[in-house]
């Protein structure tokens, strides 16, 4: 009942799954950022996102990622000083 895979097929499969995992992780992040930045940037519901809302959304994602890098780098520094 269980299909046997050749080694080549197994490598193929595990690469495929890794890829799909990375994609799933990216999509989860997009949902998280949209949630967070929507609350920060979008006010009254209009007929289109206005220029400043769009800019705010894009800055929000970029600065959130900068914050993430800043935190990880600073923790690395602290660890290296120990």
């Amino acid at each position, binding site marked *: 009942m269980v299909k046997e895979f050749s080694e080549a097929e197994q490598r193929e499969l595990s690469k495929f799954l890794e890829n799909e995992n990375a994609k799933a992780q990216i999509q989860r992040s997009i949902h998280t950022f*949209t949630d967070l930045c929507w609350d920060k940037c979008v006010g009254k519901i209009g007929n289109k996102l206005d220029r400043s809302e769009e800019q705010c959304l894009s800055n929000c*994602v970029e600065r959130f990622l900068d914050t993430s890098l800043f935190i990880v780098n600073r923790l690395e520094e602290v660890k290296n000083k120990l």
Partner: protein
Amino acid sequence: QVRGDLALANAQELINKMNEKCFTKCVPKPGYRLESGEKTCLSKCMDRYMEAWNVVSRTYVNRLQEETRQHGN
């Protein structure tokens, strides 16, 4: 199968988030039915949420690509 599951989970999550965000914005005081003004607001809110999702998505993917380019790999 895996690919289909992923697309489905993604769509489901988008619907759940829109539901929560747009209900909060458009139906602050739930009455005996959805009023037409509330429905108009929900339609617009859905479109705005998908726009926001696209902006966030574009920004994030660009950033990932830039970082991959900078650090090799």
